């Protein structure tokens, strides 16, 4: 009898898959010093869907201080997550701009002068921007800042970051909705804006300016702070709340927002209207528009949209839309020297790993294993065999650290390859990565990770200044 031939990827093949999307950015130093509270970040993503529906963005704000980093988990296609990844940071940046700068930009556009740059993007070559929609997106953004200019009361109040984030999220979702309703004479764009609106995306965005860290979250991605205790151990501080059925407050909110008779139908089987896992998201107009509006847009839309069963399908018990919002929950954290890093990741990571493990693995990776407590026999009774077992285990851990130059890659390696003992098992890793496209999604979700490393010296200096 012939046994089916086992196929395993070799370690180099595994590495090339894991590293295909990795990206690292180091904040440049000036005069030999890095004065930013961020040292840099590592990011990576591993697809399960084909094509991947997750997106990531990172950019430095040029007209205000601070850096923006975000992960976006798309569903029902990648159109919405792609659009959000391209557009959201502009909306945030504009929301943060003072009145004078907005005026200056508007005047420059009006008179055809060169524009002030707003964002410095830090992109992997695979992170693309849509060329075709660029003009459309720009016009929507311009309308937004024109409104901000008009709304200005003349008081030059300090801009509240929390408010700016909330406004930006809501405004972008609104624009996505409007663009789909209005349509576009260009048939390609017309179809694009509809796809964006009918698909959905969660967003988890961090804004870091000095010691001020804001996290705006919509959906079930998560932001986790890695804190190093005085004894060198690691603990995790969650900076975002998941918007899903596991969150009591979200369940409460949904019940309050809809009539009592819908209390049982609004969340069924832990899903919104029995369909959607995240309770907040961009796009997903199926959960936001009235039934009339949905039918009208689909009927007048292109054939491809009409042929799509998903878009045509109206959720059951759909009585009092909107059921879904893109409004983020914003948390604020003041960075301390013991806050070493921030992990932003889509639910693909958090489903497979406990937050405490995530923080420990990244922490140990970033500080290097040499900070691992050396073993000392002291006065204990230890046999050579016991010592050998202990050392072999430590070495196995260490070797997986040295393979990766990127903390996000290292985390993905653990997420996909961990065995029951929490050590990377090459065979398992190889099996998981050789799954055919059709099967991959059954074993895991897309994983997108950004690990932001903080500069403890700068953070400490801020603290001393203010004392």
């Amino acid at each position: 009898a012939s046994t089916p031939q086992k196929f395993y990827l070799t370690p180099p093949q595994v590495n090339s898959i894991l590293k295909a999307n990795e990206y690292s950015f180091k904040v440049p130093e000036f005069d030999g010093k890095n004065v930013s509270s961020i040292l840099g970040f590592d990011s990576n993503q591993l697809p399960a869907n084909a094509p991947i529906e997750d997106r990531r963005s990172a950019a430095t704000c040029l007209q205000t201080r601070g850096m923006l980093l975000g992960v976006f988990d798309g569903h029902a296609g990648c159109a919405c997550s792609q659009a959000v990844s391209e557009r959201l940071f502009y909306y945030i940046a504009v929301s943060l701009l003072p009145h004078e700068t907005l005026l200056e930009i508007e005047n420059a556009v009006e008179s055809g002068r060169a524009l002030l740059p707003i964002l410095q993007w830090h992109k992997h070559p695979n992170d693309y921007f849509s060329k075709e929609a660029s003009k459309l997106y720009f016009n929507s953004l311009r309308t937004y800042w024109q409104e901000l200019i008009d709304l200005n009361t003349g008081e030059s109040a300090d801009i509240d970051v929390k408010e700016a984030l909330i406004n930006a999220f809501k405004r972008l979702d609104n624009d996505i909705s409007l663009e789909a309703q209005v349509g576009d004479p260009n048939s390609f764009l017309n179809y694009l804006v509809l796809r964006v609106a009918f698909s959905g995306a969660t967003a988890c965005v961090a804004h870091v300016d000095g010691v001020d860290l804001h996290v705006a979250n919509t959906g079930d991605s998560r932001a986790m702070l890695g804190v190093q205790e005085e004894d060198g151990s690691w603990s995790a501080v969650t900076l975002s709340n998941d918007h899903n059925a596991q969150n009591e407050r979200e369940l409460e909110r949904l019940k309050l927002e809809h009539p009592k008779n819908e209390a049982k139908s609004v969340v069924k089987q832990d899903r919104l209207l029995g369909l959607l896992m995240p309770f907040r998201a961009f796009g997903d107009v199926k959960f936001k528009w009235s039934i009339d509006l949905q039918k009208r847009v689909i009927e007048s839309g292109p054939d491809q949209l009409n042929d799509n069963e998903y878009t045509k399908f109206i959720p059951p018990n759909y009585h009092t839309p909107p059921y879904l919002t893109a409004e983020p929950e914003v948390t604020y954290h003041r960075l301390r020297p013991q806050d070493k890093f921030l992990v932003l990741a889509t639910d693909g990571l958090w489903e497979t790993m406990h937050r405490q493990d995530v923080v420990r693995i990244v922490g140990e990776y970033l500080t290097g294993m040499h900070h691992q407590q050396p073993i000392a026999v002291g006065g204990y009774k230890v046999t050579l065999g016991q010592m050998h077992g202990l050392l072999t285990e430590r070495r196995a851990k260490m070797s997986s650290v040295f393979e990766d130059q990127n903390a996000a890659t290292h985390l993905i390696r653990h997420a996909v390859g961990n065995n029951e003992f929490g050590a990377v098992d090459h065979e398992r890793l190889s099996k998981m990565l050789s799954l055919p496209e059709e099967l991959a999604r059954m074993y895991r979700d897309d994983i997108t990770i950004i690990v932001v490393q903080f500069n403890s010296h700068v953070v400490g200096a801020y603290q001393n200044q203010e004392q």
Partner: protein
Amino acid sequence: SSVEQKMANYSNKLYHQLEQETGIQTGYLRTGSISLAQTQDRLISLKRINSRLNVVGIPSEIISPKKVAELHPLLNVHDLVGAMYVPEDAVVSSADVALALASAASQNGVQIYDRTSVLHVLIKKGQVTGVETDKGQIECQYFVNCAGQWAYELGLSNEEPLSIPLHACEHFYLLTRPWDTPLQSNTPTIVDADGRIYIRNWQGGILSGGFEKNPKPIFTEGKNQLEIQNLREDWDHFEPLLSSLLRRMPALETLEILKLVNCPETFTPDMKCIMGESPVVQGYFVLAGMNSAGLSLGGGAGKFLAEWMVYGYPSENVWELDLQRFGALQSSRTFLRHRVMEVMPLIYDLKVPRWDFQTGRQLRTSPLYDRLDAQGARWMEKHGFERPKYFVPPNKDLLALEQSKTFYKPDWFDIVESEVKCCKEAVCVIDMSSFTKFEITSTGDEALESLQYLFCNDLDVPVGHIVHTGMLNEYGGYENDCSIARLTKRSFFMISPTDQQVHCWAWLNKYLPKDSNLLLEDVTWKYTALNLIGPRAVDVLSELSYAPMTPDHFPTLFCKEMSVGYANGIRVMSMTHTGEPGFMLYIPIEYALHVYNEVMSVGQKYGIRNAGYYALRSLRIEKFFAFWGQDLNTLTTPLECGGESRVKLEKGIDFIGRDALLQQKQTGVYKRLAMFILDDHDTDLDLWPWWGEPIYRNGKYAGKTTSSAYSYTLERHVCLGYVHNFSEDSGEEQVVTTDFINRGEYEIDIAGHRFQAKAKLYPVTSFFTHKRRKDDVELSDFHGK
């Protein structure tokens, strides 16, 4: 090496009787030792050692894995191919030995100052006068720097700094609690070099350490960096050695750990210890850098150093351990740190012929280095200088470093063969810039007078002549073997082996008259040396200089400054260090590239190609050219190696060593360098000779080889080596005559296998007239090479 073997043997004997002599227990126990072989190559290396031990009277045997299991019940022997058993090896406690030695010394009037640190050594007019300590001054004539890891710093603390190149690495060994049922106290010590560990009994348990692949150098910045007492155990670092230990002795699993000791050891750039006198300060001696063999070599090393101090010479040739083999160039801390990281693992690595260090390279290079490298040169290093071994043709691949290790025919065999052939039939160029080059000039006749006193050959030759001559000590032994060209009536140009740069300089400075108008200059760095070897060298050179170069105009051993290409002032010498026709060109470095390019471009039509030192070596040895440092040393005289023609006893000057030679001429020599041609040796299938192989005459041990090479002309291996005449009864050395040599039947023992050999006292000239027959010519001979 053989001198280290002798040192270890003496130590063993010394420690054995120490307890009796001093009454202090040293823990001396004759347990014997077993060196394990996990591979065939390791077994070959053990067999080579075994052959050498047997001939110096140390019992040892190659045993099977089964026998290993009988000798040591706890060993896993399943992965072994064999082992070497030395039954008389012993263990001692190092601290107790030190105590016993100190006490014996005290009894003989030695004063020992405890807890006293030396600040620096006091020197006046290049002579030690005392020591400044933290407790005051001590006057003395001799000072021995035995400061171990701190010897480097102490050496530099003098007003005239002395470079003692050594560097420490952390060294770990494990101590366990006792077994429940202790092993027999005479259970042999185990050396598992393939597993990188050693295991010995220790207070009912075991002591085991090793030499790991990734050593941790320490104290690079000096003494105050870290207290030696505060060194930490590092179990993660020890893990590979522990794995290896448990594999070898699985029963250890259940044995309890006592502790892991971190005890730094000192290593040197070439894995040999450092002893001898400072080249700059008289009376300043050094003994340090024991490469973790301090205990086993200590006794013998102490003996040799004592002889050195008392008689001026140790009783054995210790050049390979002599401080003067190094110079300031090996003194960089970065160099030492990198090099000892390579040296420490090497202690247990397989030692194969022609091993080159990989660290600390490309320090001294010829200006042609890049040009040669681009043409496929593979390099070896001597005294920091990069020298080409051979040139790999563009279409040829050689094995990777690890795979190329072999005791058999090496992968470059065909490459060197074509280089040798080109030297014989056309012309080759070899960059030989590493040779040590001195110029000695004076306003009057002092240069000639001094050199006549220092060298055994007659240097009062016409200007333009070159003289091969030895630089002898008072016992007639070679301190140096060199070529001296008389440039003018009052200036001489002296060429010596590469590693003579420090030693020869020190020797000359010691004997040349002070305060005279005599100038000695080291011009090594000023000249690039190209060796043009081959019958067509004369054509190349005459075309480049428009000067007739035929023997009538340019006889052999002649030196002339001339122009080559556009470059003027090139020192051309009609000698090649191989016995082949050709010329050495000494080129001021700024002209080197020009002259090389011209030679190569003109040489093209004569079939010129690059060649390396391996080809040179093959040519030299088949012509019985002995080389200082390998075949010649301070204990061999010209009369013992066929150098009579280079000694002019009657030149009218009582040169150094003359008396000894006169005496020797009367009594006869007790050893004689001969050339051996291996007869029944299959180059493709048999182990190759290297050096140190025992020579048997009529079935009796008669000496050891000093070097060997494959002769492409003879199509045989050629070994050089000394033949002794040990008395049948007493083993005493007797006179060796030409007749004695010629009447013997010889065998060379390579790793336990004896090959028949023919002994010659003069090169076999008839073989060399290799003429190509007319009908052998084919079209491919017209191809450029």
